[in-house]
C-alpha cells in the first residue's frame, strides 16, 4: 500500500526541512555544524547562537503553525462536508488576527503587556471563536460551496475592516503599526522562544487530542445523521472538533500571523495521494503542514527580495484553489 510508505516519507521530508531551516540563512551552516550547535559538542560560538537563539525558535514556530493549520483544515473540511473549507477562507484566521491586532493596538492604552505570552494567544483564541461561531451560523453543515465561500468572503471583509480600523487609529505609532502589518502578512521572522512557548505546547496537545477522533471524523464526513445512527455521539464529537480546530488556528495565527492556504493545500494533496481516511490523513497533514510551511519559509530566506511567508503560501495555494474550484466534484 502507498499509505504505508507515507509516514516514513513525510517524516524524512520533515526532518530534512527542519535541518535545512536550521542550516540556511545569511550564515550558511553545514549539517554537522547544526548538529554540533544543537548538542553543544563542538561548533563555534556564533553557530551556536544563530541556531539556538534564532533559527531553532523560528523553525519550531513554523512546525507548530504548519501542523496546526493543516490539521484544522482537515477538520473543517470534514466538519462542513466541503473539501474547500479552510481556516483562512472561512475567516477563522482573520478572527484570530483581529484578536491579536486588538491587543497590539489597544493593549498599551489599557496597560496590558502587549505581546505577553498570555494576552496575545488568548485574544487570538477569542477572535477565532467569534469567527467560527459566525461561520457556523451563516453556513450550516453540508452547505454548498457557494454559501460557504460567500460566508467566508463576508466574514473576511468584516474582520478585515476591523483590522484596518485598528491600523488607522494606530497610524501615529510606527512600532505598533509595523507589528500589526506583520500579523496581516504572516511570517516567521524574529520568532523567539517566547513565541515557541506561546504556541507549541498547546498545539502539540491539540494535535494529540485530535488524532483519536479520526475514526469518528470518517463517519461524520459522510453525513451527520448516518454517523449518529452508526454509533457516533455526533454532538460531542462536533463540539470537540470545532473547539480544537479553532484553538489550533488561533494559536497558529498568534505565533505566525495570517498564513493562508496551508489548511487547504496540504490536506488536499495528501488526500489525493493517500486517500481520505482521516485516521491517516490527520497525522499525515500535521507532518506535511509542518514541512510545507518550513519549505515556504526557506523560500523567503533563500530569495531575500522581501517575500513574506504569507505571500509565498498564497502564491502556491491561490492557483491550486482555483484549480480545485474548476475541478468537477
Amino acid at each position: 500500500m502507498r499509505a504505508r510508505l507515507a509516514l516514513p516519507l513525510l517524516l524524512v521530508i520533515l526532518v530534512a526541512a527542519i535541518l535545512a531551516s536550521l542550516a540556511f540563512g545569511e550564515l550558511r551552516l553545514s549539517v554537522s555544524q547544526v548538529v554540533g550547535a544543537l548538542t553543544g559538542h563542538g561548533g563555534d560560538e556564533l553557530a551556536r547562537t544563530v541556531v539556538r537563539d534564532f533559527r531553532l525558535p523560528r523553525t519550531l514556530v513554523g512546525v507548530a503553525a504548519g501542523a496546526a493549520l493543516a490539521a484544522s483544515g482537515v477538520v473543517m473540511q470534514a466538519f462542513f462536508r466541503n473539501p474547500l473549507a479552510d481556516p483562512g477562507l472561512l475567516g477563522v484566521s482573520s478572527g484570530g488576527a483581529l484578536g491579536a491586532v486588538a491587543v497590539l493596538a489597544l493593549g498599551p492604552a489599557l496597560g496590558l503587556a502587549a505581546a505577553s505570552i498570555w494576552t496575545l494567544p488568548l485574544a487570538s483564541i477569542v477572535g477565532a471563536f467569534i469567527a467560527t461561531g459566525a461561520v457556523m451560523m451563516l453556513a450550516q453543515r453540508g452547505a454548498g460551496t457557494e454559501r460557504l465561500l460567500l460566508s467566508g468572503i463576508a466574514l473576511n471583509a468584516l474582520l478585515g475592516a476591523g483590522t484596518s480600523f485598528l491600523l488607522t487609529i494606530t497610524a501615529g505609532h510606527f512600532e505598533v503599526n509595523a507589528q500589526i502589518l506583520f500579523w496581516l502578512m504572516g511570517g516567521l521572522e524574529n520568532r523567539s522562544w517566547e513565541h515557541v512557548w506561546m504556541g507549541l505546547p498547546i498545539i502539540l496537545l491539540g494535535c494529540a487530542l485530535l488524532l483519536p477522533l479520526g475514526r469518528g471524523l470518517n463517519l461524520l464526513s459522510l453525513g451527520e445523521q448516518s454517523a449518529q445512527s452508526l454509533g457516533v455521539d455526533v454532538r460531542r464529537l462536533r463540539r470537540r472538533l470545532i473547539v480544537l480546530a479553532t484553538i489550533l488556528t488561533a494559536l497558529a495565527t498568534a505565533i505566525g500571523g495570517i498564513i493562508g492556504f496551508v489548511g487547504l493545500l496540504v490536506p488536499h494533496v495528501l488526500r489525493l495521494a493517500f486517500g481520505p481516511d482521516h485516521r491517516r490523513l490527520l497525522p499525515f497533514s500535521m507532518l506535511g503542514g509542518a514541512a510545507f510551511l518550513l519549505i515556504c519559509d526557506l523560500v523567503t530566506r533563500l530569495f531575500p527580495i522581501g517575500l513574506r511567508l504569507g505571500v509565498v503560501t498564497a502564491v502556491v495555494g491561490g492557483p491550486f484553489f482555483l484549480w480545485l474550484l474548476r475541478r468537477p466534484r
Partner: protein
Amino acid sequence: MTSALQASALTVPGRLEDVDLDLGPGELVAVVGPNGAGKSTLFQALAGLLPTDGQILWNGQPLSSISFQERGRRLAWVGQEAIFDFAFSVRDVVAQGRYAWNDDPSGVTEALAAMDLLTLADRPVTRLSGGERHRVILARALATTAPLQLWDEPVAQLDVRHALEVHRLARHLAEAGGTVLVSLHDIRAAYRFDRVLVLDRSRLVGNGKPHEVLTADLIRTVFRVEATFVTSLVPELPAT
C-alpha cells in the same frame, strides 16, 4: 409478546403527531403515505436522530437510556440521501457499519455480496451512480447486523433486479427475527409485507395487515387515487 420497537404519543412538532406503535421481532413492515406525510420523520425519530416528544422504546428500553454505541449495534437507519463528499472506497464505507463494533470486520464482505457490490468494492463512492450509492448505504446497514432495520425508500432509485433483491433481503432479515421497516411509494408492493403503516398529514391513519388496511376507501382518501384490484397483473391476451 415482547416488543422490538414501541412508540407512544411520538411527536415531532409540525412533522409528526401523536404516533403510537408496537412492532414485534420478526415483523416486516411497510410504511406508505403521500409526499410530506411524515415517513422520513417517523424513521428518523424512531432511530433517535431527531429531538422528539413522547416515548420510544427499543426492546422495552427507553431510547434515552441507550448509549450511542449500543444504538449503533441495535438499529440501522438508511436515509433517502446517499451523497458522498469524500472519495472513500465502497468497502471502507460499508465497513463503517462496524463502527459500533469497534471496527471488527466480520460481515463486511457478506454485506458487500448481498448488495452485489463485490466487483465495485475498491471503487471510490464518488464515482458511483445514484442507485449504486444506495446499495452502498444499504450494505453498510446490513454490516451493522442490527436487529432493527429502518430503510427509507431503499428501492426508489434501484433497477428491478436490485429492488427485488432488497425486498427479498428484508423478508430474510425478518424471518431471522429482525424487525424491518421499509418505506415505499409503490403501494402495490406493500401487500406482500406482514404489516403496513399508513401516514397522512403527519398522523398515523392505518396500522395492520395490508389487506385490511389498504382498502379502496383508504387509498382514495389518503392518496386521492382510485384503486382497481385485480387478481392477475397479466392482461388477457388479445384473440388471435
